[in-house]
């Protein structure tokens, strides 16, 4: 069985995330890392590999992003993925969801015909939760998304997920696109052995030409959406803070709520 895990390199959420002059996300000037939510996808892929120890399972980490984004692939290799693919090309900068999903889909086809394409539930920067669905659409595969529990048997996949008003069990047959949530189980830390082993694992760098995408199909200038303006939110004006002493906190809180007409 072959698994491709899509891992995104994102600016650190605890760093000063911001935009560039052209309103694209600064992906170079801010420290980045493998999106934490994609670690869960890597983890589930590795668990499948472990559970299906009687067959050959390969896990390939795939990332589309700038030079530095190779760190995301490396982290996945350190966690235990078998090989990595990094698609990097200046023309990709500023791509929107549609173009990103196109590049990912073409790269997945180039890697081979995986049985499972795995994703995180959302990227921690864009938070769209749309790329997995777009990938399924482009690849013509079933989409089984937002899994909190993943089970497989042969080519059958069953997941459990929380929907708006219900808990659902979804079933589908491989090949398919699968996304997992942060409820699926903590991701492992790379071990020292894993970090050493990762250095010897195959890591392929591909350009747009390598995957058969025309540079004119992607990037900021042809994006189907355009950001017009980005503004930092003004800092909230400092609020009133009181210390509770012998019940004064509750009184002040109630007063405040009443003054704002919430009571």
């Amino acid at each position, binding site marked *: 069985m072959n698994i491709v895990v899509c891992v995104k390199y994102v600016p650190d*959420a605890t760093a000063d*995330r*911001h*935009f560039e002059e052209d309103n694209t996300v600064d992906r170079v000037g801010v420290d980045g890392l493998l999106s934490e939510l994609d670690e869960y996808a890597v983890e589930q892929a590795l668990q499948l590999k472990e559970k299906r120890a009687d067959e050959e399972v390969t896990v390939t980490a795939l990332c589309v992003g700038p030079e530095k984004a190779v760190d995301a692939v490396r982290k996945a290799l350190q966690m235990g993925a078998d090989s990595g693919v990094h698609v990097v090309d200046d023309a990709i900068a500023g791509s929107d*969801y*549609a173009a990103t*999903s196109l590049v990912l889909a073409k790269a997945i086809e180039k890697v081979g015909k995986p049985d499972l394409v795995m994703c995180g539930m*959302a990227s921690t*920067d864009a*938070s*769209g*939760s*749309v790329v*997995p*669905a*777009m990938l399924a*659409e*482009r690849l013509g595969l*079933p*989409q089984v*998304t*937002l899994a*909190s529990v993943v089970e497989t048997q042969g080519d059958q996949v*069953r997941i459990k997920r*929380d*929907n*708006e*008003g*219900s808990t*659902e*069990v*979804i079933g*589908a*047959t491989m090949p*398919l696109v699968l996304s997992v949530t*942060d409820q699926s189980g903590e991701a492992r830390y790379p071990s020292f052995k894993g970090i050493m082993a990762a250095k010897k694992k195959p890591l392929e760098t591909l350009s747009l030409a390598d995957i058969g995408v025309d540079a004119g199909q992607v990037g900021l200038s042809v994006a*189907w*959406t*355009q950001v*017009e303006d*980005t*503004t*930092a*939110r003004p800092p*909230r004006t400092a*609020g*009133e*803070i*009181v*210390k509770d002493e012998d*019940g004064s*906190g*509750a009184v*002040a*809180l*109630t007063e405040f*709520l009443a003054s*704002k007409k*919430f*009571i």
Partner: protein
Amino acid sequence: MSEVLVVIDHADGEVKKPTYELLTIAARLGEPAAVFIGAASQGDAVAEKVKKYGAQKVYVIDDAELKGYLVAPKAEALQQLAEKTGPAAILVPSTFEGKEVAARLAIKLESGLITDAVDVQAGDGGPVTTQSVFAGNYTVTAKVTHGTPIITVKPNSAAPEEAEGAAAVEAFAPTISDGAKTAQIVASQPRQSTGRPELTEAAIVVSGGRGTGGDFEPIEKFADSLGAAVGASRAAVDSGWMPHAFQVGQTGKTVSPQLYVANGISGAIQHRAGMQTSKTIVAVNKDEEAPIFELVDFGVVGDLHTVLPAATEQVTQRKG
């Protein structure tokens, strides 16, 4: 004037409030046309509801053939409807399902997709959206430059405005391919209602975190005194104190109520991502250094186990 398709957010025919918000937004952009994907037998009752918020037309897509599968059939149905009606825009509720339907639709229609809009206004070259990004630290305006603008809109993005529409019901029967029926819903267990307002729609949300120590009673009682929904931090959910459906934050629900009360929650960036756009923010936390206090309009440094029960009593008294 071109139609603007609004995908109705509903649970088994019960129309949810965000639908009315979307219809209100649609009226800014063109002629609101609601799309009901559900049981055809409920079509008329749904039409009566959306009529009051300006729906000129109601397309009813019977979901008998669609509902056993994840999103793909819905995207196909909407594609066919869009190709027939040539709408000026398509507005979809920003739920996980809504976003996935919109994602597939965008690829099918070769159209730009904007997710999680918190406002949409008419502009020269089509709708202009506002999004709140990077945990609410940035506001971004954007527009679609290719195809039919497809926009997913978050709850509480507009105040629903009543307007009498014609609500002419029209059945639309899509052709669903076998390829769309591949991810099957094998079982579905409805969650039990708490009797409290829906988290994402509520005007007031009262949340608890690790600081509750697992006892949510003070949170629930305070919420009930205010008629509020109950929320939780991921720490509280991961500890098994509250179901995941109550989680507020990056990987839970995003809420934007009039009032958000965070109790025993430190205010991590991922939690902020789900509540930072609330109009008024209040916190109760025993650590005066807790980062949540940087956000608040009003804060109490104290133990939630004493502050909340006392406040609950006073609120109840005031309400008489």
